[in-house]
């Protein structure tokens, strides 16, 4: 679980939104894919597709040892009134300091209160967690009563 690459993805999505790009691509990893799907479920992205650096796959292509270096994840960005829906995205856990939290602390964060040096979720902000059961948004994790590693926040 490389947080360095995740940080690059966060910055890239911010930059792409600032440039008002319709679609953009990120390196293909399981973590990135799951996080992008979680972002899409939260309504930040319009589409998540596998592809190559040239563009999304027109049809299903299996990832194998021959093409694995050429795999990318293509995501569609959303805009409303020429304003990006995903305007801010950044890491919470850092490569040097990873942060795990239990449900009680997550509840505090979800109530917009600071907890363990982590800023509380602002109105409309989504915090994503890596758990042993996959990647969840903070409210989903609280609903399932599971804690995990705080990955990133998006707004």
């Amino acid at each position, binding site marked *: 679980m490389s947080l360095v690459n995740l940080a690059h993805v966060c910055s890239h999505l911010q930059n792409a939104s600032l440039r008002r790009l319709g679609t953009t691509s990120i390196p293909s990893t399981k973590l990135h894919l799951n996080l992008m799907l979680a972002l899409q479920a939260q309504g930040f992205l319009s589409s998540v597709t596998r592809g190559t650096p040239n563009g999304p796959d027109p049809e299903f292509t299996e990832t194998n040892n021959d093409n694995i270096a050429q795999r990318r994840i293509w995501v569609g960005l959303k*805009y409303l*009134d020429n304003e990006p829906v995903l305007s801010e995205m950044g890491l919470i856990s850092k490569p040097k300091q990873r942060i795990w939290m239990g449900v009680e602390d997550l509840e505090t964060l979800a109530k917009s209160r600071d907890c363990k040096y982590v800023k509380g979720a602002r109105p409309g902000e989504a915090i994503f967690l890596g758990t042993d059961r996959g990647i969840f948004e903070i409210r989903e994790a609280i609903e399932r009563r599971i804690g995990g590693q705080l990955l990133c926040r998006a707004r």
Partner: protein
Amino acid sequence: MSISRPITRLLRRPLVGATSSTPAFTTPIARSFSSTPASFKKPTIREITPPLARYTDEELAILKEKYTPEQLQSLLMGEETIDHEHFLARKGRAPKDPYKLRYLTDLSKMDPVWDFPPPEVLAEDPHATQPLPKTEFDQNKYFPMEEAGEGELDYKELSKQLGMPEKQLKGLYVKKLDMHRVVNQTRLGKIRKMYCLYVAGNENGMVGIGEGKSSESEDAARMAQKNAIKNMVPIQRYMGRTVHGDMEVKIGAVEMKVMARPQGFGVRCSERIWEVARAAGIKDLSVKVTRSRNPMNVVKTFMYALQSQKLPETIARGRGIKLADVRSAYFGASA
């Protein structure tokens, strides 16, 4: 009637009596309730002196209405076990209310003072009917507006330009925020002017800032006021009192944290931001300016912060999800 009463008497009586060695309950000292024949009973003092009547016939009649004959009989028999002195000195048990008043008022009796309305006092106020002194100034008479003087806004002209009633224009909160001298260096020499910054707002969600520059400070002030009123824009407030969530804003060298605060917190920030917040009608707010504190730039940055708020409704529409404000959904508060 307490059930423990006869038992305590049972235990207490032998101490008073002579036989201390015998256990208290071997001989029935207290009067038994059953219809035991009188010959079996030990002679007691009560039997020697005739029992005193505890209730009058009238009272008994009332009790009969309330209780069945069996109940009344058992009650009376129970009460007979109580000493006559104790019975006469009986009191109602005060309810265990720690906050009740420290006195007992007998409301069954009429109070000569409190239970009657006060007598009517005839109003004898000599000033009430005194006619008002006649003055030259008649409030109802219409006076045409005078021409705008020096340093004063021409409201009539402004009203025409903005399409806003003159009365409304005069009711705006207009305040000077900054005024200083500026110099332009040309080949002819230095040209000195006065710069002025004003804020205007209706204290209810409309606010604007205006700048004016002129060689005369009065002209600069007038221009700034006019521009401030012209630049008024609606800003979003949460529940009409604070901002939507915390913000960190940066324009140039000015960086500030604008923080939403709970109801009744007040506006805690530097003076110029306070003026802008007042003009906008923001009541609860906290602002921390972290870098440059240049007055003009601080005011402009704060205005930018107010206008660049991300509304929950916009976020929900962009993400295609439903955001519910618990306060309004469950407690009916207006957002």
